[in-house]
């Protein structure tokens, strides 16, 4: 059994609880032990780097330090935004001068030897795909999905070092294994507006609407994400988009772990799929998946 340090991040303890729940369940089922980083703190996400570079580096670095203390080598991160920050720091720590300065801010050294990977990477290795294929209880029955990776999983490629920057395939491969049909669309890494929804709702509605329109046009019945921010923007804003533009998408937005969980036989209720703001259960029920 492989053991990973698990960094849920703030969203997975709040608006994206279903991501946390489903991630833990599927990892357990697939024989991956997740050990939550003890006393982890917010990575600073979309705000710290806006005001201070050293804060932006040090907040995530503290978490790497904690993992080093736990004696683990690899940390898996479900949230794409947290992944971007943590991975960025793990790259920056290679520079001894930066490492020293971060050590000063933290009040203790951090080596940066911990490998940071996104959960979607952890769960889409060939080994895991093969394993999952053998464990499927409920194939996704041709569910037509559009995979949406968002900005931060693959970008910038020099830092993220995950998948192909302009046309990533990891989730596509997983979902095909699970029996769904992955539609061809071209907005896999287009931005949804990220952290702007609170301050500039108008922009996020516009960007999210473009994504939803494109997915629908491509024939998708649902969008699959690996980022709580993307999920939140696409899932919770459909009402407002209807209010402003009149488009009623009714497009369910899933975390990839939820669909993986369903295929492995977990009931929708246990995966907290009912938490979504845009109804996802009806679609699943129609396919006998919930």
């Amino acid at each position, binding site marked *: 059994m492989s053991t990973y340090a698990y960094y849920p991040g703030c969203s997975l303890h*709040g608006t994206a609880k279903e991501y946390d729940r489903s991630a833990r369940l599927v990892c357990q089922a697939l024989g991956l032990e997740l050990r939550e980083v003890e006393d982890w703190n917010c990575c*600073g996400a979309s705000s710290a780097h806006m005001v*201070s570079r050293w804060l932006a580096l040090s907040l995530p670095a503290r978490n790497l330090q904690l993992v080093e203390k736990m004696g683990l080598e690899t940390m898996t991160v479900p949230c794409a935004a947290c992944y971007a920050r943590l991975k960025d720091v793990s790259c920056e720590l290679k520079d001894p001068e930066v490492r020293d300065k971060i050590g000063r801010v933290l009040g203790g050294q951090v080596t940066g030897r911990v490998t940071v990977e996104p959960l979607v990477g952890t769960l889409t290795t060939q080994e895991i795909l093969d394993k999952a294929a053998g464990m499927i209880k409920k194939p996704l029955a041709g569910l037509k999905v559009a995979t949406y990776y968002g900005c931060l999983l693959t970008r910038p490629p020099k830092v993220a070092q995950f998948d192909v920057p302009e046309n990533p395939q990891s989730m596509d491969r997983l979902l095909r294994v699970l029996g769904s049909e992955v539609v061809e669309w071209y907005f896999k890494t287009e931005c949804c507006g990220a952290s702007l929804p609170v301050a500039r709702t108008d922009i996020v509605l516009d960007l999210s609407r473009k994504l939803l329109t494109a997915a629908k046009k491509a024939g998708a019945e649902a969008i699959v994400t690996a980022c709580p921010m993307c999920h939140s923007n696409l899932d919770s804003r459909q009402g407002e988009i209807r209010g402003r533009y009149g488009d009623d998408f009714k497009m369910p937005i899933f975390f990839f772990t939820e669909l993986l969980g369903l295929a492995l036989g977990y009931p929708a209720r246990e995966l907290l799929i009912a938490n979504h703001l845009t109804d996802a259960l009806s679609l699943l029920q129609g396919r006998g998946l919930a």
Partner: protein
Amino acid sequence: MSVLKFASTDQPGRNGLLALVKAKTGQDVLACYQCGKCSAGCPLSSAMDLAPHQVLRAVQLGQRDLVFQSSAIWLCVTCQTCYTRCPQEVDLPRVMDALRSQALQEKIRPAERTVKVFHDVFLGLVERFGRLYEVGLIGGYNLLARQPLASADLGLPMLTRGKLELIPRRVKDQEQIKAIFKRAAELELEEITGQSVAAAPPASVPS
């Protein structure tokens, strides 16, 4: 529109802004030859007053006011599309970060006040609890942004679906978090005052 005036003794772009950006980011903004690919791919450029390539151009010419008062530096969400595709490999998101933090240091009124308020509230909560507390974020934001009802229609369904935690979770080692904020701000200051930059006396990093 004002005229950019260069006197015979001026060296456009050599008034410290380029050097400041270089010191804070390691990026050589002069590498940008204004092809505009960053702006072409930017999801936010249509909402910005200066397109991303224009921000770089203004830095090249040392136009501090133009840069620091722009909405662009606040609307950039660092989605990394520009940097990923830039032919000259200019790390524009990092430049944007540096410009924002400098604008704050110089106490320049942000062109996108609500964005700034959001980040203030966000970091205030993180400093206080060590983690983000979403109810606090929305509440605090609405109070400061004077938009008491913003996102209220989302609040209820979120609550009923258990998406919002009413009680903040705290990091145990509160002291370390507070110390990190303090020392990061000190280091930031140290770096800027280490630079001979003609700037207003730097204030502490707001939180």
